[in-house]
C-alpha cells in the first residue's frame, strides 16, 4: 500500500510503498502508475515507477506540492486489471564470447557454470520497472543460489543486448552503456525500438519474461 508521501525537491512527489521489494509491493506501484497515466492529471510531467517507489513530477507553474499530494491521497484506484500478464520469450546466447562474467560467478558462488545457466534459464521473471537507460527492464527474482553483488569496478562499456544479473535482479542492456552487472549472455532481440514511438519498449512493468537458450549460429542468423 501507499505508506507515505513526501517531496523530492520542489517539483516532485515521492510516494513510498514500503521498504520491502516483492511483487506485491511493486504491483501497487504499478497500479498507481497505470491509474495516474490514464487520468492524465493537469500539471503532471512524468511518472517514474520503481521497485517500491513512485515519483510524480509536476510543473510547478501549474500545480504545487499540497494540491497534488491531496489529489494522490484522494485517488480512488480502479479495480485491478483482469488482463493476464504478458509473457515474453527472450532468446539468449550463452557462448563464451557473450558470457563475460560466467567464470567470475562460478568462482565466487562456487557453482559449476552449467548449474548457473540451468538455474538462470529455468525460471519465470517479473518486470519490476523499466529505466536508467531507455527500455532497460529490471527483472526478478533470480534463484537464491546465483545471487551476487555487482562488479567492484563497473565496466566502462557493456555491449548492447547483454544480460546481467546482480543480487535478486536481472536486466538487459538496451544500449551500449557503462554498467556493473555480472554479464551472463546476450540477446539478439531489439528490446527498445525508438522507431516505434507508440510502444518502444518490448518489456514493460508487470510483464513476465522467460529466457530460452540459442546457439551462436542461431544468434547470428536471428536478425537476417
Amino acid at each position: 500500500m501507499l505508506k507515505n508521501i513526501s517531496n523530492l525537491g520542489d517539483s516532485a512527489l515521492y510516494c513510498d510503498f514500503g521498504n520491502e521489494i516483492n511483487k506485491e509491493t511493486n504491483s501497487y506501484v504499478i497500479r498507481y502508475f497505470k491509474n495516474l497515466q490514464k487520468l492524465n492529471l493537469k500539471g503532471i510531467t512524468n511518472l517514474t515507477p520503481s521497485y517500491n517507489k513512485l515519483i510524480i513530477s509536476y510543473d510547478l507553474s501549474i500545480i504545487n506540492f499540497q494540491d497534488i499530494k491531496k489529489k494522490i491521497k484522494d485517488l480512488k484506484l480502479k479495480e485491478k486489471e483482469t488482463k493476464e500478464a504478458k509473457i515474453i520469450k527472450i532468446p539468449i546466447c550463452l557462448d563464451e564470447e557473450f558470457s563475460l562474467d560466467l567464470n567470475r560467478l562460478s568462482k565466487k558462488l562456487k557453482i559449476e557454470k552449467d548449474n548457473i545457466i540451468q538455474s538462470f534459464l529455468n525460471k519465470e521473471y517479473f518486470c519490476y520497472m523499466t529505466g536508467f537507460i531507455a527500455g532497460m527492464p529490471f527483472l526478478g527474482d533470480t534463484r537464491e543460489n546465483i545471487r551476487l553483488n555487482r562488479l567492484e569496478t563497473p565496466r566502462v562499456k557493456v555491449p548492447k543486448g547483454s544480460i546481467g544479473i546482480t543480487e535478486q535482479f536481472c536486466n538487459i542492456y538496451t544500449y551500449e552503456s557503462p554498467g556493473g552487472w555480472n554479464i551472463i549472455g546476450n540477446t539478439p532481440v531489439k528490446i527498445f525500438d525508438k522507431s516505434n514511438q507508440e510502444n518502444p519498449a518490448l518489456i514493460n512493468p508487470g510483464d513476465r519474461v522467460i529466457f530460452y537458450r540459442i546457439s551462436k549460429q542461431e544468434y547470428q542468423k536471428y536478425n537476417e
Partner: protein
Amino acid sequence: MSKNYFEILRPGINSTFQDLGRFNQHHIGIPMSGAMDKRNYMIGNKLVGNNNNISAIEFAYQGPLLKLQSTKVIAAVTGNVNFKILRANSKIEEGECYETFELNDGDQIDIISTNKSVYGYFFINGGFEIESFWKSFSINTTAQIGPNDGTKFRLNQKLFIYNKEIKFQKKKIEYLNSKIEFIRVLKGTNFNYFSEEGTNNLFSKEFTVSKLTDRMGMRIEGPKIENIVETNIKSEGLIKGVIQVPGDGNPIIMLSDYGTVGGYPKIAVVISADHDRLTQLTPGSKIKFKLVELNEAENLYKLYEIETKNILNQIR
C-alpha cells in the same frame, strides 16, 4: 525537404537541437532533456517570433560555424556569447546577443565561444525542419534519441530550415545573465544517511565544479560527505537537480539528460528557480549550497516566473 538550409562548417563542441524537453516518458527510461538554460531558450524564441515548441540550437563552450543557403532569415543568439557574422560580401560584423539580425544567402554565423558560462542558443524564425520524437525535438546524445539520429552536429551536415520570409523588424532587449552566490537546495529523501559533519560541510564549505560535467550531470569536488547508513539504495526515480552521493563521498548533481533511475542516496535537491544558473557554471567555478524550506522554494519559483514574464513582455 526544403531547399533552405545551414551548412555546418564547424560543428562546435556539443551542438544539439533543444526545446522545453520530453514529457511523460520516464517509465520507459527516457529523461526530460531539453534546454539546459530555459530562460535563455524562451527569450530567444520570443525575439525571432517563434513559440516555445520550435527548437533552437544549443551549444556549449564553442558553438558552430554555419553558412546559410537560403533567402533571408531572421536570427538571434542568447546567453553570454561571442559571435561574428561573416557577410557574403566578406564584411565582418560583431554579433550582439539579445537582438535580432538578418542573415542572407551565403552569410555565415561564427559562434566563437560562450563567455564565463557554458550554454548559448541560436534561433531562427520558423525553426528547423526536423522530426519530433515523443513530441520533442530535444536531442539526447546518451540515449541516441531525438532528431539527427540522436547525435550531436557533425561537420558538413545540412540543417534544413522552414523559411517563412517575414518582414524584418529589429527586436532587442537589455538582459544580463545574473550571477549566483548560493545554489539553494531542499533536503533530499536520504538526508539522514549522512553524518552531521557531512551535511554541515555541504552547507558551510565551498565546492568546485569538476571537469566531469556534461548534460547528464555535474560532478563537484570538496570535502567528502560521509555516509553512515548505506551507500547504495534500491534504484528509484531521479529528476533534474537531485544531488546523489556515491560511496566515494563526491556529490553528483543530475542535469537534463539524467538516467531515469539511480541507486545512490539523495542528500539534497536543487530548487527549480536555480536550475538555469546552476547549468551555466563552468568547470572550476566555486559553489556554495544553502538549505531552504519547501514553501520558500515554491515562492522563489514564482518570483523566477514573474521575472521571466517581465523580460518576455519587453519584447514586442
